[in-house]
């Protein structure tokens, strides 16, 4: 079978062009999953030109050390016996550091083919690499390729197939003779079961006192003692520790290889350096960053994206309908204007190539097919299914645009600079520089915001960002804010304009306070994550990878939306339309004698009554308020529409004074009204965002923690607002006032106390790493 099925592992440093190569040779229609037990991405696909070859893309790593989950996955896979051959992708413009991993991979004894990527750039720089000599030095074939320009790929895979049939190599490169002696001794002590081509790998690992390898080899007690003695002696001789000795030797070998194989053209300033001079300039860096972010936000969220989303929501999916290329829109608008109160009688089809909205079309088709107008099926399909899908798919165009831009910034190398510029600010509250992008995107929509956390490699930082990013008010929460402003002050536009920034401020405060509190809890305990990061050279991304990046992200959302989120939407529709009235359970709107406010009798109302006590300390214990919160889970802008129907102010928007009055009347005090607003802005985001959180966390437990924390935090803030309003404005004092004061004190303590010592010393790094793998 060996020659019919070949497993190829793709290994290499981050930013070496490995993913570009993977996408090129597999057509990128592979399977993307996770390595068992960890949230490290695992990609697998068949070679386009030969279906018998399976390619596994290993995570981008710098070494095969046992410390990070990515590196552990990679070496476990390499040693698992599955891969027949390894393609070691090397960024030829940075041979020195890239060969460091290559040497380690060669030491595994597997057949290796070294692919010197970015051959075109080497040529452009005027450098010369002697591949024959390099091949001899490394003891394995070396091929020049350019994944971006699709050069040398066929030759590479000819060689890969040849190498796959071979037995693998015993590494050519030799360390200093004193070290080699020790390694020889260790090799002699290895059990006979270790095959010849893997003996050196394990000898080196035992020398480094690599815990995983030691466990795997399981030497007898006396042999282990002898090895330990040898290593200790060597450490004493070299006046250094074992890990440093090996690292030093590897870089020493590389220095020799490079001396002989690489002829460098005289150094001149690269384009990348020129760009960086300006972009991360001490003075210009921040302003440039602000401008770029503003542009991204402005295009994706405010103007173009907003327009497209409105179009999808109101015209394509809604009841408005649309004109092909906008022809006839003006004439129609003029006619509606002229008709005044009789606007409904104007037929839009008369004014141009008109296409009705999907809701209208489905509704008409259903009625034509004999379904009762406004009946059960009509409502389920139009309001529940099409409406729900519309609410979700409305975000797709906006997300698409956003990801086109963010993926570009990421692929070209700017994101690493963003982290460089913003790190100082964000690490103060337990986040990293890369957390900024998700926060910014979340002010448009939390779904792409949470998805943007994908670029944060560190798991702790990523989880923390996912948990806090939806605190930032998104576009769909703006109607709630407008409704609140109207209800409190009776004006949503001019004089009350200061309230809206206040809620953004609340969101930012929530992020910072949460960061400060959470980083001191057991959940995020441990050493602060080191932030040592390569700043890759700028380059224009491969269109293919870029497009794929965008597609992967949008598709992940659509898939989620089509399943979980969609189901939840239908459930909420069911809850609010079904219930018992006059002793009979059924579809409420078609029941006999049911009043206009049929929701009073719905399952949602019953449920609302059941849990309303939770919100009593916040000042709103009516089932309506609870029902509004639940409807906000489908989509936050639903809160306003639901308020309209619950309060029987039909067809009222957030700018309608009659809705303001009715809404304000729902609450006993202004404090309760604001508390309700704050709770709804901060509590669990909509189903779409929750689904994305689940996706991003890749863990039910962490999703529950995130949502639970958000709701609890929102509740506490709501409590503060209501109780302190009662105390300070109304002079009321009660048991809940005491609770609020105690909670406030606890919160302030957690925010301002120093980092607890136990968090640092509790677990050592190795424990953390192995726990991450076994979790």
């Amino acid at each position, binding site marked *: 079978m060996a020659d019919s099925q070949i497993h190829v592992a793709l290994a290499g440093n981050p930013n070496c062009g490995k993913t570009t190569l993977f996408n090129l040779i597999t057509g990128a229609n592979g399977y993307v999953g996770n390595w068992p037990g960890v949230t490290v991405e695992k990609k697998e696909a068949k070679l386009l030109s030969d279906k018998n070859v399976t390619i596994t893309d290993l995570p981008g790593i710098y*070494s095969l*050390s046992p410390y990070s989950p990515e590196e552990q996955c990679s070496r476990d896979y390499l040693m698992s016996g599955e891969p027949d051959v390894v393609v070691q992708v090397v960024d030829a413009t940075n041979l020195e550091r890239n060969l*460091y991993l290559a040497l380690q991979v060669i030491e595994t004894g597997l057949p290796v083919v070294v692919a010197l990527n970015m051959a075109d750039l080497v040529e452009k720089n005027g450098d010369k690499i002697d591949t024959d000599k390099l091949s001899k030095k490394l003891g394995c074939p070396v091929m020049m390729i350019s994944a971006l320009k699709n050069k040398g790929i066929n030759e590479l895979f000819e060689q890969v197939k040849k190498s796959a049939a071979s037995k693998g190599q015993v590494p050519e490169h030799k360390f200093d003779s004193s070290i080699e002696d020790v390694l020889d001794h260790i090799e002699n002590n290895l059990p006979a079961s270790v095959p010849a081509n893997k003996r050196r790998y394990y000898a080196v690992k035992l020398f480094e006192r690599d815990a995983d390898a030691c466990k795997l080899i399981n030497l007898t007690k006396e042999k282990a003692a002898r090895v330990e003695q040898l290593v200790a002696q060597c450490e004493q001789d070299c006046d250094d520790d074992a890990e440093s000795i090996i*690292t*030093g030797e590897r870089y020493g070998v590389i220095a020799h290889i490079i001396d002989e194989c690489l002829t460098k053209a005289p150094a001149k300033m690269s384009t990348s350096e020129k760009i960086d001079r300006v972009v991360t300039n001490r003075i210009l*860096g921040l302003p440039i960053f602000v401008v770029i972010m503003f542009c991204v936000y402005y295009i994706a969220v405010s103007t173009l994206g907003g327009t497209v989303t409105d179009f999808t929501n109101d015209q394509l999916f809604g009841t408005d309908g649309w004109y092909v290329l906008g022809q006839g829109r003006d004439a129609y608008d003029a006619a509606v204007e002229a008709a005044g109160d009789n606007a409904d009688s104007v037929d839009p089809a008369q004014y141009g190539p008109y296409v009705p909205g999907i809701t209208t079309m489905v509704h008409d088709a259903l009625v034509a097919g004999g379904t009762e107008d406004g009946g059960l099926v009509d409502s389920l399909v139009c309001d529940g299914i099409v409406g729900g899908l519309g609410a979700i798919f409305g975000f797709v165009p906006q997300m698409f645009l956003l990801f086109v831009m963010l993926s570009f910034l990421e692929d070209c190398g700017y994101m690493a600079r963003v982290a460089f510029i913003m790190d100082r600010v964000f690490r103060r509250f337990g986040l990293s520089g890369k957390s900024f992008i998700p926060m910014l995107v979340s002010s448009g929509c939390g779904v792409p915001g949470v998805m943007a956390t994908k670029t944060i490699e560190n798991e702790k930082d990523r989880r923390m960002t996912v948990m806090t990013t939806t605190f930032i008010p998104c576009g769909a929460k703006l109607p709630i804010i407008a409704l609140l402003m109207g209800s409190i002050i009776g004006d949503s536009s001019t004089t009350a304009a200061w309230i809206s920034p206040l809620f953004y401020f609340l969101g930012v405060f929530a992020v910072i306070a949460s960061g400060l509190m959470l980083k001191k809890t057991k959940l995020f305990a441990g050493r602060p994550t080191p932030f040592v990061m390569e700043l890759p050279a700028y380059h224009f991304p491969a269109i293919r990878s870029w497009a794929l990046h965008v597609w992967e992200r949008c598709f992940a959302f659509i898939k989620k939306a089509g399943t979980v989120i969609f189901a939840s939407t239908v459930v909420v529709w069911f809850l609010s339309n079904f219930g018992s009235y006059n002793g009979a359970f059924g579809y409420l709107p078609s029941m006999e004698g049911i009043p206009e406010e049929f929701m009073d009798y719905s399952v949602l109302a019953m449920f609302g009554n059941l849990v309303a006590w939770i919100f009593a300390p916040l000042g709103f214990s009516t089932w309506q308020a609870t029902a509004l919160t639940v409807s906000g889970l489908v989509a936050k802008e639903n809160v306003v529409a639901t308020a309209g129907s619950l309060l029987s102010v039909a067809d009222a928007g957030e700018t309608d004074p009659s809705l303001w009055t009715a809404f304000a009347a729902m609450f006993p005090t202004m404090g309760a009204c604001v508390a309700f607003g704050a709770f709804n802005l901060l509590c669990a985001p909509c189903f779409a965002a929750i689904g994305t959180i689940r996706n991003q966390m890749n863990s039910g437990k962490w999703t529950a923690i995130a949502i639970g924390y958000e709701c609890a935090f929102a509740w506490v803030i709501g409590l503060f607002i209501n109780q302190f309003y009662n105390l300070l404005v109304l002079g009321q004092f009660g048991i809940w006032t005491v609770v609020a004061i105690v909670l406030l004190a606890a919160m302030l303590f957690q925010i301002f106390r120093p980092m607890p010592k136990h968090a640092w010393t509790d677990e050592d790094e190795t424990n953390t790493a192995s726990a991450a793998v076994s979790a």
Partner: protein
Amino acid sequence: MKTLGDVKVGESSTIVKLHGEGALRRHLMDLGLIKGTSFKVVKVAPLGDPVEINVRGYELSIRKEEAAVVEVQ
């Protein structure tokens, strides 16, 4: 002890010893920051931290806090 964090922007120096332990130390070594390696501090971020260094032909961003484990000449 002079550390990497003390080197001024635009200046070059050589690593004498890597202190610290565990994952961070190994990561720095893997990235090529070992005894005898020369490097140049290219720039400092607009807010004063982290710093960018050029080492072994590539650019690396490192916080001053972490740079403190790297002893230099």
